[in-house]
């Protein structure tokens, strides 16, 4: 068994969302922290896709940003290929590691500079990481990358606004691949796209993964997409992992009541006429999370222990009821 490529241990991140100092003094307010991610641990094997799924405010994008270093963790550690990323890397070491991971964002119009030509956009990682590369070689590499993502090398002279959403996401993928990374964090890469275009991008990402042995952390709110892409899935609720498992296990035999509720809520396109349970309540505000198990106010299986105690992630699920063998209220 080889070591995992990415190992996230007890990762937490708080955001200070207090009112300004003067207001606090005048109004007698405390500092307020939003616990976006709490005690999250998972590992991703080489060449596999780990998907994080959750609703808005569950902390999935925060985790993505923590992994690529756009945010620093409040606690916990991230190991990439055995090396800790959390202790601020510096100099040559950082450079060498950084080029191995890339990120693809949800909105390609926001993540591509509208004033740059596509060639310059895709060549940017090359300029940063391979400054010595002569311009003709760079141009050729950009052409190869464009072909790789299903576009024409001639498209390089155009600007991002001249492309459709799907093509822009292809450009973002080409840029991510430019520095030959082995690890890509994809934050809702197809959420802004139409279904037929989404299918193209998902197929492309799967093809590239096989071709280059890429490892993905794939973040999405769409359960169907996650089912299609992932080897392992982590379900997030209010900044905590509530269940982790393979797609087959998670979708065929979900154990956490939240996972079950989420699956029941997905519209039934297969027209199986399956009966569904009504979804109860809404996600509470992360500013004032409930005591104990964060899911207990909505949980049909909640008991006193759930209201007091935080369940631990044991054997892939964080739930007292599962622990105690209770499956019905």
């Amino acid at each position, binding site marked *: 068994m080889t070591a995992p490529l990415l190992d996230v241990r007890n990762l937490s991140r708080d955001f200070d969302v207090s009112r300004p100092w003067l207001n606090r003094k005048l109004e007698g307010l405390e500092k307020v922290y939003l616990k976006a991610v709490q005690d999250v641990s998972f590992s991703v094997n080489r060449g596999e896709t780990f998907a994080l799924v959750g*609703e*808005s405010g569950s902390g999935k994008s925060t985790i993505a940003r923590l992994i690529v270093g756009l945010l620093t963790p409040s606690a916990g550690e991230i190991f990439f290929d055995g090396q800790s990323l959390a202790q601020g890397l510096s100099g040559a070491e950082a450079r060498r590691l950084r080029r191995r991971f890339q990120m693809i964002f949800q909105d390609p119009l926001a993540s591509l500079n509208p004033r740059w030509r596509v060639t310059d956009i895709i060549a940017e990682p090359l300029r940063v990481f391979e400054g010595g590369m002569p311009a003709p070689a760079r141009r050729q590499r950009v052409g190869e990358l464009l072909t790789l993502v299903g576009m024409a090398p001639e498209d390089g002279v155009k600007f991002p606004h001249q492309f*459709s*959403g*799907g*093509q822009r996401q292809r450009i973002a993928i080409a840029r991510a691949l430019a520095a030959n990374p082995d690890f890509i964090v994809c934050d809702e890469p197809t959420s802004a796209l*139409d*279904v*037929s*275009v*989404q*299918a*193209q991008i*998902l*197929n492309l990402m*799967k093809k590239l993964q096989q071709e280059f042995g890429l490892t993905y952390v794939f973040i999405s*709110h*769409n*359960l*169907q*997409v996650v*089912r*299609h892409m992932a080897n392992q899935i982590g379900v997030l609720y209010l900044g905590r992992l509530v269940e982790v498992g393979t*797609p*087959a296990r998670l*979708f065929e035999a979900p154990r956490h009541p939240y996972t079950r*509720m*989420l*699956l*029941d*809520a*997905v*519209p*039934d*396109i*297969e*027209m199986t006429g399956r009966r*569904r349970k*009504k*979804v109860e309540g*809404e*996600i509470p505000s992360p500013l004032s999370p409930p005591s104990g198990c964060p899911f207990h106010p909505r949980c049909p299986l909640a008991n006193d222990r759930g209201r007091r105690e935080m369940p631990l992630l044991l054997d892939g699920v964080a739930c007292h009821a599962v622990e105690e063998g209770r499956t019905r209220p």
Partner: protein
Amino acid sequence: MTEPLLSVRGLTVEFPTRHGILTAVEDISFDIMPGEVLGMVGESGAGKSMTGNAIIGLIEAPGRIARGEVWLNGQRIDSLPPEAMRAIRGRRIGMIFQDPLTSLNPLYRISDQLIETIRTHLPLSQDAARKRAIGLLDDVGIPDAARRIDDYPHQFSGGMRQRVVIALALCAEPDLVIADEPTTALDVSVQAQIIDVMKELCAERGAAILLVTHDMGVIAETADRVAVMYAGRLAEVGPVRDVILAARHPYTAGLMGAIPRLGENLVRLNQIPGAMPRLSAIPPGCPFNPRCPRVMDHCRSHRPALSPIEPARKVACWLYPEVTEA
């Protein structure tokens, strides 16, 4: 045979631009029966929202309804003066838009907005309107409605705001509700709740729904019939079960194959090559022909009309001998 509640005949919406006239919606005809839920599905730019806006007379200038007719309960409404149209909007046709924050005024309490709308359309006193508003909020599932009615929109969560918008759309007991992507901005668990509320309340009141969305799953759960739009035209219309399980138009079939499913694990999704054409470059013949896996020579030069191929089922595709030229 009951009369359709809404009848759209040959609706065409055009936008004159410097580079010529763009046709956003071309020659669309469909009916909605009283109490029926018609899903209108398509990808971005297919013209589905434009169709909804044309029905309620909200096409922004310089866009205009170039041809066609819209009939509501036997009354032609597309040619009405703006004043008369305003009386129909809200009273006889309710509207639910995608983003509840833009349909609610952030500066007014929910109570003010509901009471104002109710009193505009119904002859009720302030007190009676308030009572009615609280009842409506109760119906859409807002807990503690009597107290929360005096809150501002920002004090509600996204799902709760969309419930308020549904209450607003239903407050004058309209015959038809046009819901344009009502759940697109919401999380999946909240989406399920909103769909339930919308369906239940419309069924109770006998209101028909025109549900505009890109999400085939929502259509499958909600609609009785579905109309599939592509590049401003209707590609296929039929009962939702038939269209989803046995699509006739190659575009519908491709679209269905492109949706990842919970129940199965495919290595590769079916993909439709290319993208929807821009309005300025809609190909001659069938608009889908450059992307169609079953394209024939005839398709490149002749435009198929939406024609009945089975009872209750219409398709615009040359694969079916019944189809005529547009």
